[in-house]
């Protein structure tokens, strides 16, 4: 047996600018075990709920994550609305859907860029982010923030999108599809890129299920589950099928996300056509009492907001299980037995968002 060494990975690492620490136990070039530890930037936002009015907390919930902020806000609102039995106007639901999908497009483009950066393809990285910039502009134009939307509130949404703006956005997205295809095709067909991803970090269907993986990580391993199918917001009225790949390697995870970009654009198109007229919010009175688990699909997978309230303006408990947290067991498993040089790529393929794990 050769000698075992422990290599620390993170919390500061060039490919993963996020504070997770992994102790990699290596033997020669093989990783035997990876021991994660987090807590470097824990903000205790779950605890803050005991001191913040439940209506005001939306703004905090949105800031749990800087990338999927729209859906964090939306999930929190959904949880409160369920507990309080608030019927949200249709138009608000559609607008939430549109913003949610815009954030998925921007998040996946961001991830593709990071992935390209991870295997050292700088030009590709820049191009992914150039495209993402256009999406960020759309978000800024409609909500006022580039990544923090601030458009969701308990009982509806705060901002409306008028018809001409929405049409312009859809037209722009339609035009962008070709450009996105050009760039994402590099991930799909380029030999040197495929060399880094095909067959690397295979997560079998059984493993994905047992390890409780979520989102694209799970769908790339052949499990057909997408929380949007629950039919929250406007997804009930929209036509889409979860994107599933079967190989379970890094390449499949990449392909799932690429296809989801086009799916999201399609969903925005559908929602823009069906967007009904009407009010965008309802007045909220009273206080919540009860408990509920709100589940939605974020770019990174399923997020859970557990809420328990006892009829006061302060919630008793808010628990957020972010998709990255659920994907850490899968990561720990993937890293066992991989090559040391593949560690950054593997860590990237689960699309880790440690900041949201450290809510």
């Amino acid at each position, binding site marked *: 047996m050769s000698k075992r060494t422990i290599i620390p990975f993170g919390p500061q690492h060039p490919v993963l600018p996020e504070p997770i620490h992994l102790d990699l136990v290596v033997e020669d070039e093989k990783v035997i075990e990876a021991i994660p530890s987090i807590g470097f930037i824990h903000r205790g936002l779950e605890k803050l709920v005991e001191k913040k009015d439940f209506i*005001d907390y939306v703004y905090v919930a949105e800031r749990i994550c800087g990338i999927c902020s729209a859906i964090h806000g939306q999930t929190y609102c959904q949880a409160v609305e369920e507990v309080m039995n608030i019927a949200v106007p249709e138009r608000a639901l559609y607008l939430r859907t549109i913003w949610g999908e815009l954030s998925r497009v921007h998040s996946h483009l961001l991830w593709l860029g990071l992935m390209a950066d991870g295997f050292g393809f700088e030009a590709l990285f820049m191009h992914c982010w150039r495209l993402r910039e256009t999406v960020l502009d759309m978000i800024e134009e*409609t909500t*006022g*923030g580039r990544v923090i939307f601030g458009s969701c509130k308990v009982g509806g949404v705060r901002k409306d999108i008028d018809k001409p703006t929405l049409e312009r956005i859809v037209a722009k997205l339609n035009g962008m599809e070709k450009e996105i295809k050009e*760039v994402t095709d*590099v991930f799909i067909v*380029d030999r040197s890129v495929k060399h880094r991803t095909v067959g690397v970090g295979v997560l079998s269907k059984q493993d994905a299920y047992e390890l409780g993986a979520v989102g694209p990580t799970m769908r790339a391993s052949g499990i057909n589950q997408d929380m949007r199918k629950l039919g929250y917001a406007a997804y009930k009225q929209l036509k889409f099928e979860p994107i599933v790949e079967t190989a379970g390697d890094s390449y499949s995870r990449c392909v799932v996300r690429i296809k989801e970009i086009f799916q999201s654009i399609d969903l925005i198109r559908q929602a823009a056509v069906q967007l009904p007229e009407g009010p965008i919010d309802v007045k909220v009175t009273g206080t919540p009492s009860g408990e509920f688990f709100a589940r939605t699909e974020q770019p990174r997978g399923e997020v859970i907001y557990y809420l328990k309230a006892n009829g006061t303006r302060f919630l008793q408990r808010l628990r957020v299980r972010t998709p990255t947290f659920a994907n850490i067991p899968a990561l720990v498993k993937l890293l066992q037995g991989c090559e040391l040089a593949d560690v950054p790529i593997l860590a990237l393929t689960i699309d880790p968002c440690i900041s949201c794990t450290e809510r």
Partner: protein
Amino acid sequence: MIFSMSKTVLSSLFSKPSTRLYPITQRVPFKNTRGKIEIDIAACTFCGLCSKKCPTSAITVTRADKKWEINRLQCLACDYCVLVCPKKCLTMENAYTTPAVATSKDSFKVARVPDNTADSKDS
């Protein structure tokens, strides 16, 4: 395919750069952009609602000497104070605050109070 990227790379070589020459050309913010909070101090009643609702406690309202203060670096531009202000005297400007190296606090006082006409706005 080996050079699947060449077309994109070549076309960007001959097209206009997608970045801006920053300090020379500035980005025009959108109408909706959440930049910074401005106050019409004359209309404020110093009820303190904005400071109570602010998620980061960036606003301090002192009713006694009619002072409204905002800590610029603490404000996360969520726009909530604008929503809750009963007098609608707060607005969200679409220009960002200028970059700062130290905490920047802006305070506003009401000029109508006779004994502090001298420092009506000391920012």
